[in-house]
Structure formats: C-alpha cells, structure tokens
C-alpha cells in the first residue's frame, strides 16, 4: 500500500501517556518517524520500548486525555489518528472499525513468534491475506511461497509450527508479517527467545528485508551489532522518556548521557 | 388434573420436602465418608499393593465408574433385600452404593495427586531410608492432600446432587416425598419438584462459597 500523505511523518507520538494501574510507563512521550526510517529503541527493561510497539499495533491503548486536540495523547500513523478518530469535529477514542482500518498498514513480529499451531506453515502465511486483504487463495499462496523462499523455508511449507526450530518459526513469522505488505514493521525483541546459534539466521533475514525494501521499521532489540548496521536512528529510553537519540554511530561510540553509557556497558558486558 | 402453581399446595408440601432434604444431607455425609476413605484406600493399594491386586481393584473401579448408579443401586438393593438380609435399610444400602460409586472417581483424583508429586520426593524419602509408613504419612499423603482436596470436594458436591437417584429403592429423599404427597393428594408435582430444585440451589450457594475458601486456603498453603 502506498503512503497517501507522504508530507506527514509516518508515525507520530504526540504527548502520549500510558499507565498500567498506578504504574506510568510512558510520560507525555513525543517523537516522529519518517517514512522508510529504521529506528531502534534501546533501554533497560521496563523503560517502555515494547509498550510503544504494542500501542502502535493497538494491542494496548493510550491512557486517554480530557481534550486530545489540546492535551495530546494521540498517536498518528500517516497523519491519521490511530488511537482516536474524528467524530463531530472532535477526537474521540477509536472504535474497532477505525482500528482495523489503520492497522492494515502495520505488521508486527513477536518475541515468542505466535505462529498459529493449528495451521501448517503455508497457511500461517496465507490465512490473513485471504481473510483480511481479500486476496484469492492462489494469489495468497504465490505470495506466501515467494516470501517463504526469501526467508529460506521453501522446504517447510507443509510442516506444522511445532515441527520447526525457534529460528525457523521466527522466520515464518517474518514472512507472515511481510505478506500483509505493511508500511510499518514492528520488531519486538525477535531474537530474545532464540537459542544463540539460531539468532544469526533470523537477523540475516531481517538485514535482507532492510536492504531490499523501504518498509519503515521500529526495532526493539538487545542485538547492538544488528541495531548499528540496520538503523538510521537509535533512541535510548528510560522510565518512559527519551534520554538520548541520534545516529547509531553517535549513540554506540560516543554516548553523551551517563544513563546511556551505563546501559550500553551493561549490555555489551553480557 | 392439576394446573399451574398453587401457593397453598407449596406451603402444605414444604415440610415433607424439607424432611427429604435432611435425608439428602444425611446420605451425603455417610456416602461422602465412604467415597473419601475408600477412594484413598484404592489409590494407595494401586500404588503400593501387589500388582495383581492393583489391576483387579482398578478393573472393578473402572467398571463401577463407567456404569449407571441407578442400575448399581437396583442391583445391590435386589441382592440385599432378596438374598442377603432383608432388614438392611434402603438408606444404608443406598448410601453404601453411592459412596462406592463416587470412590471410583475420588480414587482417580487421589491418584492424579500422587502422580503429580515430583519423583525427587520419593527419591529423597528413599535416601533418608524412611520406613514405608513414614514415606506415606509424612511425605506423600500431605502433599497429595493439597493437590487432590479440591477435586475430591467437587466429586462430593456432584454426589450430593445425585442422592435423589436413591428414591428408586424408597429412600425418603425429596423425589420420594413429592411422589408420596402426590399419591395422597393427587397434586403437588409442580410445587414438589420446584421446591426440590430450589432447595438444591439454596444449598449450592454456601457450598460454592466454602469451595472458594477451601481453594484459596490450599493455594496459600506453603508447600
């Protein structure tokens, strides 16, 4: 799908708050991402990185503000409010129909793969194409086979997820997300659940995707080498606010903030 | 022919239904004790007894579990009243059959509780050279109880609701009472069976509360 409003940033967080009960995870967070940008979010656990991806995927919802137009608390995707919708000239909390419409542009790969165990590999990749994009079965299958070839799993189309290794499952999950032609791909610690020897394959596939497409990517990862190679920008989070951001070389080689330095030292020591 | 609900009949039949309800509770206590104790015995025999004894007990329990209580009650009642001892009361025979029937379920719950105990516990008990009765009394049974109690309690509640089956041999529970009243007054089906259902419902509320407390306590226990 083409981005209809290229003059907007593709992702915009405008003073977004997110609390779970008494715990405030995001504190009036604002940032934008331009189309085609690859942004890596780093920071200690609990800093709100994953929450940002889950808000974009509408798996979580922003903590509402009284007047979104004035107070913020709105997420926009391609200029369109994601967490809200226009109703009578006001921004109100989005309903399921609105969410479904905006969600079409976004895909996500999860830490725990979340392949559907009741479907063989091929059907995992075709199912949503058929049911949410309305593609024909043949069309969806052709697309799925092509993508499964890209991730190196042509031989496994007829396997069940339970018969695959974690790395293979994650590569299927990447193919499944790409099959929906997303403008934005959210990668949530996609290698954290993998045995060390399987990480390289998955990252290799993602490097390919980064090199050959212009999909906007938001990446949460502890793989600093991968982050450095793939991203244009790195944002360091702590307690729901951006501590520091910049080009990967700046952040990784010459971090200004003490909290960034501490965090990188701790991660690289692992 | 009776039509609709009559408050007057309901008032008249209620004392008899209440008596029937008390009998249901009495049967539940007697049969419940049998189910709890016999089930435990069966589970332990299957674990420590001679393999042949275990297999036999298991086969019998399987047969009991997979055939209707109603027919078992009829069969045993026929046997005792015609061939063994006609003086044995329907209450006693009915409670015994009901208890054995549910022992076939509780035994499975105890067994599941025993099997859920980590192998390491048996090994540790062996390493300490504990005598068998101490292994069971001090190590296995206490841990099994925590795992099995809620399930066993659920079977007893299920059993409580099946007590009315014993009307077939004349135990004076609620169905019998309703039928007796109908026999004398040619009315009371609506009121009798409705009151019987409502008494069960009324009892199920405190039981549900007690079960929740029990489950919370078990969840909070330290092992």
């Amino acid at each position, binding site marked *: 799908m083409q981005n209809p409003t290229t003059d907007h940033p593709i992702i915009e967080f405008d003073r977004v708050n997110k609390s779970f009960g008494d715990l405030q995870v995001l504190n009036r967070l604002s940032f934008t991402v331009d189309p085609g940008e690859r942004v890596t979010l780093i920071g200690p656990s609990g800093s709100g990185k994953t929450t940002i991806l889950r808000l974009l*995927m*509408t*798996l979580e919802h922003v903590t509402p503000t009284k007047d979104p137009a004035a107070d913020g608390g709105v997420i926009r995707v391609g200029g369109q409010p994601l967490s809200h919708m226009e109703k009578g000239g006001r921004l109100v909390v989005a309903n*399921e129909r609105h969410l*479904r419409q905006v*969600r*079409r542009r976004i895909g*996500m790969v*999860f830490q725990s793969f*979340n392949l*559907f*165990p*009741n479907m063989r590999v091929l059907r995992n990749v075709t199912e*949503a194409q058929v*049911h*949410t994009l309305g593609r024909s079965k043949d069309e969806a299958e052709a697309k799925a086979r092509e993508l499964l070839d890209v991730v190196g799993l042509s031989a496994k189309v007829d396997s*069940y997820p*339970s018969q695959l290794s974690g790395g293979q499952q994650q590569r299927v*999950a990447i193919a*499944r997300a790409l099959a929906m032609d997303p403008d934005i791909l959210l990668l949530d610690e996609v290698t954290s659940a993998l045995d060390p020897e399987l990480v390289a394959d998955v990252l290799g596939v993602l490097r390919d995707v980064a090199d050959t497409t212009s999909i906007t990517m938001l990446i949460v990862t502890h793989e600093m080498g991968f982050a450095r190679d793939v991203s244009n920008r790195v944002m360091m989070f702590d307690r729901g606010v951006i501590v520091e951001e910049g080009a990967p070389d700046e952040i990784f080689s010459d971090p200004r903030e003490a909290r960034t330095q501490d965090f990188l030292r701790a991660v690289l020591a692992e | 022919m009776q039509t*609709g609900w009559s408050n007057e009949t309901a008032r008249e039949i209620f004392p008899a239904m209440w008596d029937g309800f008390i009998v249901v509770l009495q049967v539940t206590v007697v049969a419940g004790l049998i189910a709890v104790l016999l089930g435990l015995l069966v589970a332990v025999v299957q674990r420590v007894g001679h393999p042949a004894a275990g297999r036999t007990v298991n086969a019998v329990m399987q*047969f009991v*579990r997979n*055939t*209707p*209580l*109603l*027919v*078992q009650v009829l*069969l045993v009642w*026929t*046997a005792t009243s015609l*061939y063994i001892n006609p003086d044995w009361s329907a209450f006693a025979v009915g409670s015994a059959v009901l208890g054995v029937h549910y022992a076939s*379920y509780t035994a*499975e*719950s105890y*067994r*599941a*509780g025993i099997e859920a105990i980590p192998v390491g516990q048996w090994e540790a008990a062996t390493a300490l050279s504990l005598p068998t009765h101490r292994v069971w009394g001090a190590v296995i049974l206490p841990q099994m109880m925590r*795992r099995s109690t*809620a*399930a*066993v*309690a659920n079977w007893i*509640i*299920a059993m409580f609701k099946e*007590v*009315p*089956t014993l*009307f*077939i041999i004349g135990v004076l529970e609620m*169905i019998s009472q309703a039928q007796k009243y109908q026999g004398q007054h040619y009315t009371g*089906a609506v009121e009798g*069976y409705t009151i*019987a*259902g*409502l008494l069960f*419902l009324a009892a*199920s*509320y405190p039981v549900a509360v007690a079960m929740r407390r029990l489950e919370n306590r078990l969840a909070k226990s330290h092992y």
Partner: protein
Amino acid sequence: MDLQAVVDSLPRYGEPLLTTIVVTVASAAFALVVAFALGLMTSSKHLAIRTPARAFVEFIRGSSAVVQLFWFAFAMPVLLGIQFDYLIAAGIIALGLNYGAYSSEVVRGAIAAVPKGQLEAATALNLTPLQKMRLVVLPQAWPEMIPSLCAFAIMLLKASALVSIIGVMDITALAGLIGSQAGQDRLVHYSVVLVMYFILAWLIWTGMRALERKAKRGLGVDVKPVKGRLAPEVAAGGVR
C-alpha cells in the same frame, strides 16, 4: 433361575438398547450445542452477554439432574399447559441442558487457555473478532476440550438410565420388567445391562480417543493413549 430363559429374552433388548443410544446421542448433541453457546457467551467481554449466561449455568449446575428430569417431565407440562407425547423428549431436554451447562465450563476454560500471544498475532494480522474465534481460538481450544467432553459424554450415558424412571422403555426399564417375570432373575438382568452400559461407555471412550488423536494431529502433536483412565484433567479438577 433358568439360564435358557435369560438367553431367550436377550433379543427383547434390541429396541430398548436403541432407545438408550438415541437418548444418549440426542442429549449429547443438544448438550454440545448448549455447551458451545453458553461457553462462548460466558467467554464474552461484554457484561450484558456474559452475565445472563453465567446465571443460567449456575442455576442449572446448582441443582440436581435427577430433580430437573422430574421437573421437565412432570412440572413443566403442568405449568405451561402442554403435554409431552413422548416423555423421552423431556429426558433429552433435561439431560442436554444439565450436561450442556457443565460442559460449557470446559468450552470456556479451553478458550481461556489459548495463549494471549495467539490473539495478539491475530490482531496484528487484522483479523476480525469473529475470524479470530473461528480460525485461531476454536481450532486450538477444541482438542483440549475432548478429554473432558468425553468424560461428560460417559456421565451422560450413565444418566440416560434415569429416563427409565419417567416411563421411557430403555434397557434399565426393560431389565426391571423382564427380571420380575416368572422364571427370570432381576439380578441377572441388571448385571446384563450393566455390561451393556460398560460396552457403550468403552465405545464412547474409544471414539473420543480417535477424535482427540485426529484433532491433535491437526496441531502437529502426537498423543499416547492412556487406557481406561479418567482423563488427567478431569481427575485433577473433579466435575467443574
């Protein structure tokens, strides 16, 4: 007792055996529909759907199947001014509702046990709530339900004997009838029907195991049968 008389009377069990099977199968089918309807409703996130279903389940489970059977057979017709041409219908309704209410908890539990990540992945792929249920949740929940539903099906078979007491001629009723005739023995006939029930229960169990194996194969998992045991999840939980 005359053994020849017992053997000669066996063909008379044909039609009542069919009745027992019809009562069991019909009330199991009805119970399955009730179980899924109530199970889906009690899984709903909307209070207006969940609450009435919850109340109905508790209402049915709070009472006794035997009493409900008598109520449907003899109280409901009076209250509604109708008459059952065949009391077998009252039996099927009472047993179907009762076991449907119990089984709805199995359905609800299995739906709730589908990992949250599965629903999140389905959301990420933009499936509608209905598609999530049909394509993702139910296919995964179904194999988990089978052992417990099997236990309920066998309990339902056993409960089907109760229709004999509201005047339906099933094998239990026939055993009592023939058993009290001259030259016959009730003990023998009750034993004969116990064996019949046991065989029927075994058939249900075998069928359900095959169904479970097939369902689990649809998840790429192999199941090892455990002969003659109450399904572990049933034993561990009692009747929920």
